[in-house]
C-alpha cells in the first residue's frame, strides 16, 4: 500500500461476488443436466394447474430427475404458502 493510495478510491473486491454467483448457477445447471427437455414446460403447466387451487409462484415448484440404479425418479415438490393449503 503506497502513501498516496488514500487518494484513489478502492474498488470492491469482485472475486467473491464471482465465486458466489458461479456456485449458485453451476449447482442449478448440474441439477438439470441430462434431464428431459420437457421439464421446463411440464413445470409451467403444473404451475397453471396448481394455481387454480392455491396461489403459488414459479419458485415454489421444483422438479428433479433422480437416477437410481437402473431407474429414474421424477421428483416434484411444491411449497404451499402458509395457511392457504387445503382450501
Amino acid at each position, binding site marked *: 500500500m503506497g502513501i498516496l493510495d488514500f487518494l484513489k478510491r478502492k474498488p470492491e473486491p469482485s472475486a467473491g461476488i464471482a465465486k458466489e454467483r*458461479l456456485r449458485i448457477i453451476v449447482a442449478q445447471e448440474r441439477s438439470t443436466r441430462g434431464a428431459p427437455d420437457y421439464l421446463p414446460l411440464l413445470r409451467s403447466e403444473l404451475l397453471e394447474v396448481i394455481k387454480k387451487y392455491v396461489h403459488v409462484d414459479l419458485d415454489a415448484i421444483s422438479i428433479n430427475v433422480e437416477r437410481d440404479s437402473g431407474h429414474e425418479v421424477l421428483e416434484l415438490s411444491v411449497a404451499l404458502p402458509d395457511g392457504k393449503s387445503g382450501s
Partner: protein
Amino acid sequence: MTAEIIVVTSGKGGVGKTTTSASFATGLAMSGKKVAVIDFDVGLRNLDLIMGCERRVVYDFVNVVHGEATLKQALIKDKRYENLYVLAASQTRDKDALTQEGVEKVLQGLSEDGFDYVVCDSPAGIEKGAHLAMYFADRAVVVVNPEVSSVRDSDRILGLLASKTRRAERGDGAIVQHLLLTRYNPARVAAGEMLSVSDVEEILGIKVVGVIPESENVLAASNAGVPVILDADSQVGQAYSDTVARVLGEERPLRFLDAPKKGFFQRVFGG
C-alpha cells in the same frame, strides 16, 4: 499398442486451447513420444500458425477424412522434433465436412502408424466439431480462465465429457479429466479481483493439473510460431512443462501462484 487420444477443450473460445494443444503436443514429443496434434476447427484453421508450419500445409484433416489424401501426405513433420506431426484443419470446408466414421478412421490410422499420443485441438462451442474432438478421447484437458463465463462453460464441458463420449457410451471406464487454469494473474488474485485456484477447484469440484500464468510470452511465442513451452526461460514455458509431466504421472508442485514482491518505489507510491 494403441495411441492415447487427448482432447484439449473448453467450451468458451479464446481461453488458450490452441496455445495449450501446441505446447502440450510439443511437451509430449520432447519426452520422446510420437505425437500427432490435430486441428478440429474446420473453417478456422489456426494450430498451423501457432506451431509455425502454416506455409507447409498442402493437405488437411478433411482431405484425409474424405480419402482425397493419405495420412502420410497430410501429416506435417515439425521442424524441431522429428517425432511430432501436425494435421491442419481445412480452411475452405464447413464444419459438416467431418464425420464420426471419418474421424475414427484417421485416429485408427494414426494408431496403426505407431503414434503414442494424438492431441485433438477442439473448436470452441459444443457443436459438431467440438463433439467429434472429444468423442474418441481417453483423456481430456479442460482449459479454463479464472473468469465467470469460462468457469460456467467448463462445467458444462465436464458434464459432456462424462456422458457424450465413446467411453461413456460403451461404459469403458470414465475418460480422465484434467483441469488446466490459464491466464492466471496472481497479483489480481491477491487483490481480490480474480478467482483463485482454490475458488475454481471448489466451484468445479476438480483439482487443477496445472496453472499457467498470464504472460506476454504467449503472444510473443504465437507471433513467432513457436509453441510457448519451448520458451524454457519463461514462467509460462515452465508451467506447461510441469503440466505435461503431471499428466504423464510425475508429481510436481504448482509454481508461480504468488504475486511478485513489489519494489521500494511501488510500495511507497502504489501501483
